[in-house]
């Protein structure tokens, strides 16, 4: 299909082309500037972070050799005995892994309860008092900004070694993280049931119980499960500071160069995390319902 394209005069064209070139040049200049700034920042950060490329190149061969070292010696002819040799301490490790899971579970549950109790006070649509809202939000912010392992370090000193300080540390961090997410869910609810219960003379607690909670519960459960996934990862390392779980044994294995133990424990952790990820993903999709799966 032939359509007549209006042909501009050469002068007009030259002007347009010059304008296009100017625009492209401006973009190029901006990109170059950003790249230069990034390079400068990297060099600065490299100096602060003691990045030494020559040492790195001199040492990089250790990474594959380390991976080779931790790979267990498995022979096809003698597979059963080799496997038994690799996982010589399986019962103990499975026990610790169960501890780790329970730490994550208890901390997620406690954190979800804490976040649940605080999120309504932190939502703008339910709490009129600015002071209360401000206090609740700042408290949640503090809880989630301090890393859980820092809480664990302090709690281990206060409560003694063991899983209890670990659970408390992860629970506090979870309260902060879930409280914020929960509050965001609450702020996006349909306000009509709230008005209905208020109009029928409901108190604040009744509004929350009958108008808000039914709307938000599936989302809350989904977020709590997501947090459980994250906490399962945290619980594997909380033992590094003596707060229970499999971390303590892993730390020892790495520090003392018990190579095959390192790979054995790491593999257990990876498998556990994968199983949890897959299970919670299923449950979360079921909870939220019609969300399409990729």
């Amino acid at each position, binding site marked *: 299909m032939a359509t007549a394209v209006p042909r501009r005069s050469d002068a007009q064209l030259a002007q347009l082309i010059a304008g296009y070139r100017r625009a492209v040049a401006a973009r190029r200049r901006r990109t170059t500037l950003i790249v230069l700034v*990034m390079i400068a*920042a*990297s060099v*600065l*950060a*490299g100096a*602060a*972070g*003691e*990045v*030494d490329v020559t*040492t*790195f190149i001199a*040492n*990089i061969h*250790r*990474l594959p050799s*380390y991976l080779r070292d931790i790979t267990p010696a498995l022979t096809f002819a003698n597979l059963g005995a080799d496997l038994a040799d690799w996982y010589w301490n399986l019962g103990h490790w499975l026990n610790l892994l*169960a*501890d780790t899971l*329970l*730490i994550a*579970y*208890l901390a997620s*549950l406690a954190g979800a309860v804490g976040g649940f109790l605080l999120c309504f006070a932190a939502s703008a649509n339910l709490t009129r008092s600015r002071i209360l809202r401000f206090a609740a939000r700042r408290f949640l912010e503090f809880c989630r*900004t*301090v*890393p859980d*392992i*820092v809480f664990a*370090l*302090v709690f281990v*000193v*206060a*409560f*003694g070694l*063991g*899983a*209890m*300080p670990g*659970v408390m540390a992860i629970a506090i961090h979870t309260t902060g993280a879930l409280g914020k997410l929960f509050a965001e869910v609450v702020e996006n609810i349909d306000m009509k049931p709230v008005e209905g219960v208020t*109009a*029928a*003379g409901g108190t604040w607690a009744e509004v929350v119980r009958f108008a808000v909670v039914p709307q938000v519960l599936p989302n809350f459960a989904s977020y709590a499960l997501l947090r459980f996934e994250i906490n399962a*990862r945290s619980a*594997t*390392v909380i033992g*590094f*500071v003596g707060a*229970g779980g499999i971390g303590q044994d*892993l*730390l020892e294995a*790495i*520090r003392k160069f018990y190579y095959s133990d390192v790979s054995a424990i*790491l593999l257990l*952790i*990876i498998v556990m995390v*994968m199983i949890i*990820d897959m299970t919670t993903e299923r449950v979360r999709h079921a909870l939220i319902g019609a969300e399409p799966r*990729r």
Partner: protein
Amino acid sequence: MSRLRDAALADRAGLTARHPAVFAPPLGRRALAAMATASLGALALYAAWRLEFSLARFSAGIVELGHFVSLMVPPSAGGRLPTYVKALGETLAIAFLGTLLAALLALPIGFLAARNVVASRILHFASRRVLDTIRGIDVLIWALVFINVVGLGPFAGILAIAASDIGAFGKLFSEAFEAADRRPVEAVVACGGSRLEAIRFGLLPQTFPVIVSQVLYFFESNTRSATIIGIVGAGGIGLHLVEQIRVLEWRTVAFLVLMILVTVAIIDWLSTRLRLAIIGRGRVAG
């Protein structure tokens, strides 16, 4: 307001008689909810028993904790402010370089794992599983491993953050590529562009803002990770924090925690501003 409530409560029997369906308890659902709550509680009790929770230890610990908190005021650097500021700079450097390195390394992996870029199912499946494995390992474990490889210090921290983020970035990038509009890519191919040109001029321009925004978001969260990575000896302010906790210098501990909180808040603010500038208001969650 309460008049209606009182009236309704006074006529409770009449209301129940007139609207029995509303008041009939849905027994099945209630039983299910009660059972779910009971099993959650039972598991929690079992966990508390197995993990040796004790009320005596708890109360003693709380008293001790209160004592520590009272010792924390006023926070003080104990005359070592320059050391701590330098350590904080090191922490930021670790987060920055770790995130940058991870993003650069994850870009090609993201292409490999994206279904619409690389058609091979085997490659797609394999790269996804590798990324999952990498993500399953916590950054502190990576730090320990890299300390064995390059020795103690911040460099191990940079590599640890990079390693643990490659997994997450690879997955996010590949999802961004898969969600991209196909038409620009087809247009480039129709004009006679090679596959590489299709990726460069058709795919990258539309996904780049998303990728940059995700990288910035991870930089935020990596500043937090970088503060704790020093606990195992991989550089940054964490080393000082753990030392001061071990020697019970609570005023310095409070000072260090405050320093971390302020830095994290500033980085959060900056990166949120940047993200908004890059991908536009309304598309950033949080």
